[in-house]
């Protein structure tokens, strides 16, 4: 073998990223996504403090129970994804594929519910430029919805062969999307 030939390392060391499920680089992405969502949610909280009347009026137009339904849909999807990762680790790729497919299906249900909600809000007169509340609301939830779509694509790719590390990597992203929603839901819809 030539001295220039690529020789994969058998025991890669990632320093601070060692010991995490899936590909360590996914965790760099997860951390950067959490920082981005954290800044946006922080901006929303500060803007609400500065403009309480406008934000309270905007929040009153949202459909809390429908968003609560989406919480149930997303955590159930997270459960299915976690079961898929457990099955992949247990060398049951066919079982893993079924769980991942259920997670993707529930992701599609989340999108359907969210689009229904958008439809109702827009019909009630809400828009990107209606108020600072709705500008931030559509920005935050739209950015999150894009991540749901991206997560479904990632799950579709890793679920195809259901290799343990790939599934762990894909499901880690999916759980991050779930985690962001868990914090976003009360801040946008419930806390007065």
């Amino acid at each position, binding site marked *: 073998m030539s001295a220039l030939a690529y020789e994969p390392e058998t025991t890669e060391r990632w320093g601070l990223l060692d010991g995490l499920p899936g590909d360590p680089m996914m965790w760099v992405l997860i951390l950067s996504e959490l920082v981005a969502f954290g800044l946006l949610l922080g901006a929303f*909280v500060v803007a609400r403090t500065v403009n309480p009347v406008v934000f309270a009026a905007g929040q009153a137009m949202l459909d809390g129970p429908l968003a*609560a339904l989406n919480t149930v849909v997303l955590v159930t999807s*997270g459960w299915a994804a*976690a*079961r898929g990762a457990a099955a992949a680790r247990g060398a049951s790729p066919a079982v893993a594929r079924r769980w991942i497919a259920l997670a993707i299906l529930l992701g599609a249900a989340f999108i359907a519910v969210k689009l229904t909600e958008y439809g109702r809000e827009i019909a009630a007169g809400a828009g990107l430029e209606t108020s600072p509340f709705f500008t931030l609301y559509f920005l935050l939830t739209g950015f999150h919805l894009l991540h749901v779509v991206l997560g479904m694509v990632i799950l579709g790719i890793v679920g195809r062969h259901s290799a343990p590390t790939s599934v762990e990597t894909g499901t880690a992203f999916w*759980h991050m999307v779930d985690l962001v929603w*868990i914090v976003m839901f*009360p801040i946008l819809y419930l806390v007065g």
Partner: protein
Amino acid sequence: MVRDRLTLAWLNLLSLAIATLAASLLPNRWLADALVLSLALAKGRVIVLDFLGLRHAPALWRGLLTSWLAGLVALAGLAVALRALV
């Protein structure tokens, strides 16, 4: 065993989601907001430990994600308190 833990975590999340909706209906806004935010922290912690699988990962990562959660919840709580005081 792992499957059981995951299913327990899911049932826990469903219970916390229902509790969140019930808490949001309380007539006392202070209590409602405090409960809703505490329940968000509890749900997030379940996702971090059981779904993301950080229960046995390095403490640094559990700490980072929990700090992200707690930081946002604390900021939202502080904003509620400020609005009530002003």
